């Protein structure tokens, strides 16, 4: 059953990769990168449920923090201001 969950999340990740490839304007690609980061957090949590080990949740927390900081940096870049303001 949990293999089926992995297959569904993998299909969602490929949808995000499709949007990253064909997205007509740059914000589309940035949104897809954000969503892909959140999906990977869920995939790591499912791995920890499947194996019963909890160190995958460290990867989840680190990936969530890095996705948040990266998306904020992309949004600042899109707004056209410098990072100091």
């Amino acid at each position, binding site marked *: 059953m949990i293999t089926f969950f992995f297959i569904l999340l993998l299909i969602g990740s490929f949808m995000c990769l499709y949007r990253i490839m064909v997205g007509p*304007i740059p914000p589309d690609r940035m949104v897809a990168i954000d969503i892909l980061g959140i999906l990977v957090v869920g995939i790591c949590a499912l791995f920890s449920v499947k194996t019963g080990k909890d160190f995958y949740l460290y990867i989840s927390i680190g990936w969530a923090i890095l996705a948040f900081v990266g998306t904020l940096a992309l949004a600042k870049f899109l707004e056209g201001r410098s990072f100091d303001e």
Partner: protein
Amino acid sequence: MSNPIAIFIITVGVLFDILGCLGLVRLPDVYNRLQAATKSVTLGTCMILFGTFLEFGFTSGGIKALICMIFVLLTSPTAAHALSRGSHISGFKLWEGSKMDKLEEEKGK
């Protein structure tokens, strides 16, 4: 996986995730895509992490899942708001079927 409530919550979360990604592919412009994808994927991932917490209980893994859930619940809407505001300020137009643009009215004043 032994807890049936955890299995149910994880199932609903995965369904929310896949529907949000479907919205990311199908909808017409960047604001609609962000609207569909961010909310449902945030809720789905939070439900997966909460199911992980219910599966592990109050052990070290369960507490880590709870912390990660609260973090995702707080930061993901912030990132989406920053992205939509940045793309609006940067001058990308809305879809022609959109009815209302409050930020443009605010800038026009």
